[in-house]
């Protein structure tokens, strides 16, 4: 009985993943055929098999030297931006006045194009880790802030009254009610931020770096080495997917009650 159920769960997962895998494979096949039949120049559109060869030859050193660096920037930026956003959200929820004063600034931070800010930070901090982490943090800040604020506010007036009937302290209301109620929203924000952080790190690398996937892509573009560019794109997006799924797994661990996750 249990083995049947277990197998059917594996089959379930396979069936759920299969369509997207098949469609992805079909796209690669179509691309490969198109490049071969139309005989397009390889320096413009390398075929998937060429990119595959590039990944086989260069993938390991790219991953060890550059992707590791880029993901370090992305993860540090994600942690910094999310932590500041959570703290700001907690402050906003407890002091409406501060929210009125500072929320417009948060919007400004979000609307400033990071491509324009990145070179500035590179001028200030040089070819170091700092500007990349800051850009990744900047891009993570807003989605986490908006979701955290909404989540911390998502408690009902009756829940507040219940805690008041129990003569609970503000602290108790915060830890026992506000924080758990906010978690589904916070995780929704963190998942968005996890994918954005990789983009932030790569954009920051474009403006001045001596290693990282962004650096590799921009260098390759000067040499019209499109195969290497595609290899970099494939690696970084794969890393982004992994990062997203790690946060998703943490979410599943933290939100165990029914209907807790917002995006299901």
């Amino acid at each position: 009985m249990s083995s049947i159920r277990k197998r059917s769960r594996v089959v379930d997962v396979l069936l759920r993943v299969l369509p997207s895998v098949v469609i992805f494979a079909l796209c690669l096949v179509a691309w490969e055929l198109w490049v071969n039949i139309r005989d397009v120049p390889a320096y413009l559109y390398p075929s998937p098999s060429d990119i595959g060869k590039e990944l086989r030859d260069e993938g390991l050193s790219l991953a060890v030297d550059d992707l590791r660096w880029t993901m370090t920037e992305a993860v540090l930026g994600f942690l910094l931006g999310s932590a500041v956003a959570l703290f700001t959200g907690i402050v906003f929820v407890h002091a409406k006045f501060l929210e009125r004063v500072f929320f417009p600034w948060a919007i400004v931070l979000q609307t400033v194009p990071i491509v324009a800010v990145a070179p500035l930070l590179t001028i200030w901090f040089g070819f170091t880790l700092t500007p990349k982490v800051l850009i990744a943090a900047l891009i993570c800040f807003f989605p986490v802030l908006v979701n955290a604020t909404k989540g911390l506010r998502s408690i009902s007036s009756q829940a507040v009254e219940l805690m008041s009937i129990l003569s609970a302290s503000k602290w108790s209301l915060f830890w026992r009610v506000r924080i758990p109620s906010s978690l589904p929203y916070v995780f929704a924000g963190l998942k968005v931020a996890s994918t954005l952080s990789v983009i932030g790190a790569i954009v920051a690398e474009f403006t001045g770096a001596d290693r990282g996937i962004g650096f590799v892509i921009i260098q390759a573009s000067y040499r019209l080495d499109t195969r290497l560019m595609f290899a970099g794109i494939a690696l970084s997006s794969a890393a982004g997917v992994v990062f997203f799924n790690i946060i998703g797994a943490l979410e599943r661990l933290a939100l165990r009650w029914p209907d807790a996750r917002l995006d299901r």
Partner: protein
Amino acid sequence: MTSSGGIAIEGVSKQFGGSQGVTALDGIDLNISGGEFVAIVGPSGCGKSTLLRIVGGLLEPTSGHVYVGGKTSGQARRDVEFGFVFQQPTLFPWLRVLGNVLLPDRVLGRRNPNNGPNSKDIAQELLRDVGLEGFEDHYPGQISGGMQQRVALARALSYGPNTLLMDEPFGALDEFTRDRLNLQLLEVCNKTGSTVLFVTHSIQEAIFLADRVVMLSPRPGRITRVAEVPFPKPRTLEIRYEPGFAALAGELRGLLVGDDDIELAMNQP
């Protein structure tokens, strides 16, 4: 029956929105003795929930006073002498059923008279009393609305409050569930001897449960009638078919029809 302190409501008025605002309650006087079950009935918007929140120390009256067991209602609230059951169950979805019933214990710590190594046993016994044995490990999202409201009742009783305040707790439930919960409520209250103030818009429910029924008129909320219910406790659902029950229900309904809320009164079950 252990008798707990009564409630004295003295000239309570409540205005919302300043001097030009709405008068929700106007000069409410009511004495409730310890261990008594009093139901407040009135149409929507008559201020009955407001009155309940003033008694519970959640709202301040504009004028007048409420004393619970000799203390002001605010002091009684700070001393955790109230249990409150809301219109919605207001359970925390991340806590299991047992966790929700134990929430007051976790919040109160040593201030909970039932605190100690057996607080879990007390919670489990309460869940048994409301017919939820075996559901301790379910999440609120996995049980029905009626069961959720029973968990809320068990939670409100878990720390042995002297006074139970209930705000249309069974209003959202179907008739059969409501009947069953009414019986369980009477049983549990008989056991604990708590004073109960029960708000409802159902005259039938009020008469079935209460020792006295207080009728409230809307805008401004005033007491139009305080009726003694002549049926002894414990009660069974069958008393609803006795002539005295129907007569009292008809009489109280007549008070509502005198108002401009005829339609609402006609819709009463």
